[in-house]
């Protein structure tokens, strides 16, 4: 026995050594092909937002600076300190989604399926066909299916275990939207789900870009959220960053001296990312290119809203992410034409974001238009950043930077776009997102040169 065990160990040791050597080789080969060969473009968009369900109604509302922040209607929130949210009220999944899927999924996944359907249609993915291993799905999820889960847990405690339906096992789960999009459309390429709270919308897009650089030619990616239920709201309130404002108009004012926090929201976006050569070959127009991304993290206890020093310390990681994303895109600060900011609407957090922009972009940061379109929708966890990237793609297409709705008491040290959309030739747009807990991410979306 002893000698057998020893022999087994020796063999294992050799195998492990061999594996390590070969994975290094693969890693270096991959590093070259990532940068040299693969370019990732956006060929489809799908949007579900409080300001509009569908890309065109969302974009029109966004350019007009419309706001859809309103009193919470999903439940009676009159006795909660947070009473406003952005709810997706115009979307009706009943006529677009299989009823068998509707009963087994949360509203969050309904929204993801709607956005995925629009995105897939706009990129003509039908032509590739069901069951394709060439199409993968990567979504971000921060809240999961809170409302579904709460309903089942209420049934458990008030009526007993026999009243809990079997779909509780899959509906609340973070991977539900990725899985249901994959199943509904028969997309069998690499799939993933990512949780980095509100930074997740950018990180999921970056993860899809990486999957493409590794040989998966098409990816649906992004994220939707629906954290407007009692359990979801109370979970978010613990951060102390949600607005307790008494009226909708002052509930979410990014970068304003009178900012009081942010409001939660439903919605998000799904993008179709595709390898440029693959898109060309099948004659699908590229709307924009994803050229750079980086994420960083601030360790330690997340600062509370009034902790100025704590927030100031988070500026480093965001500045690092911006710098590394620009380096990934191969551009300098002077080439950034617009910033879609995180814009948390928490004064100290907003100051930290401005500090990060100044640190990473130098004197250019004062001349670059900055906007926070989500001031019109609220912040839908990871869905918010996915929505920003969709808006950035449309901004590049139209040469228009949408305004920050309802902006008042503006900061002197950034050029916040307010009132009307600003016409400007755009080549590179920087999107920023921070997630509760210390996440900070930056993504560069560019117009498609030579495509």
């Amino acid at each position, binding site marked *: 026995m002893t000698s057998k065990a020893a022999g087994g160990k020796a063999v294992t040791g050799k195998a492990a050594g061999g594996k390590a050597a070969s994975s290094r080789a693969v890693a270096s080969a991959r590093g070259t092909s990532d940068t040299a060969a693969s370019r990732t473009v956006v060929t489809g968009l799908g949007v579900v937002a409080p300001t509009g369900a569908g890309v065109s109604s969302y974009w029109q509302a966004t350019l007009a600076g419309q706001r859809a922040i309103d009193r919470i209607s999903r439940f009676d929130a009159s006795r909660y300190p947070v009473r406003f949210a952005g709810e997706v009220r115009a979307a009706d999944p009943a006529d677009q989604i299989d009823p068998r*899927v509707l*009963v087994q999924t949360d509203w969050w996944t309904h929204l993801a399926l709607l956005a995925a359907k629009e995105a897939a249609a706009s990129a003509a993915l039908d032509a590739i066909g069901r069951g394709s291993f060439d199409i993968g799905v990567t979504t971000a999820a921060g809240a999961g299916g809170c409302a579904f889960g709460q309903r089942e847990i209420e049934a458990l405690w008030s009526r007993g275990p026999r009243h809990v339906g079997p*779909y509780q096992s899959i509906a609340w789960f973070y991977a539900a939207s990725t899985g249901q999009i994959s199943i509904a459309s028969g997309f069998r390429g690499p799939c993933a789900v990512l949780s980095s709270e509100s930074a997740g919308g950018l990180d999921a897009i970056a993860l899809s870009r990486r999957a493409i650089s590794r040989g998966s030619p098409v990816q649906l990616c992004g994220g939707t959220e629906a954290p407007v239920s009692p359990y979801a709201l109370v979970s978010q309130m613990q951060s102390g960053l949600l607005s307790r404002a008494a009226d909708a108009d002052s509930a979410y004012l990014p970068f304003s001296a009178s900012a009081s926090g942010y409001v939660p929201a439903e919605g998000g976006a799904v993008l179709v990312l595709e390898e440029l050569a693959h898109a060309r070959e099948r004659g699908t127009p590229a709307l924009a290119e994803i050229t750079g991304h980086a994420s960083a993290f601030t360790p330690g206890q997340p600062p509370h809203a009034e902790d100025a020093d704590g927030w100031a310390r988070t500026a480093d990681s965001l500045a690092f992410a911006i710098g590394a994303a620009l380096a990934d895109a191969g551009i300098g600060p002077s080439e950034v034409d617009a910033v879609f900011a995180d814009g948390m609407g928490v004064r100290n957090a907003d100051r930290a974001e401005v500090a990060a922009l100044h640190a990473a972009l130098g004197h250019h940061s004062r001349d670059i238009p900055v906007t926070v379109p989500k001031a019109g929708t609220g912040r839908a966890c990871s869905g918010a950043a996915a929505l920003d990237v969709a808006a950035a793609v449309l901004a590049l297409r139209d040469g228009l930077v949408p305004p920050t709705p309802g902006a008042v008491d503006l900061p002197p040290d950034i050029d916040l776009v307010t009132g009307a959309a600003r016409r400007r030739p755009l080549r590179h747009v920087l999107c920023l997102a921070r997630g509760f807990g210390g996440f900070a991410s930056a993504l560069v979306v560019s117009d498609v040169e030579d495509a």
Partner: protein
Amino acid sequence: MPETASVTLTEFTEILSSSAGVRIAPDLVGEDATFAELGMDSLAVLGVISAFERTRGIILPPDVHETESVSDFLSLVNETVRKAG
């Protein structure tokens, strides 16, 4: 008190709709229909089983999970309903 009347196809299709999202008219459920033909996977069948147990106040025997055809399922439900009454 559990209801002792036999399960009708109407009651069956109502439960299919509410618990599994499967919408089918009672008269279109064929004599030899299977759950698989109705587009139902094992989780969907599980939901229908527990819905009958709740609404009828019964506990179905473990082999109900093995039934594949609608008629076998309904016989088992009706047998259990009769015994409970």
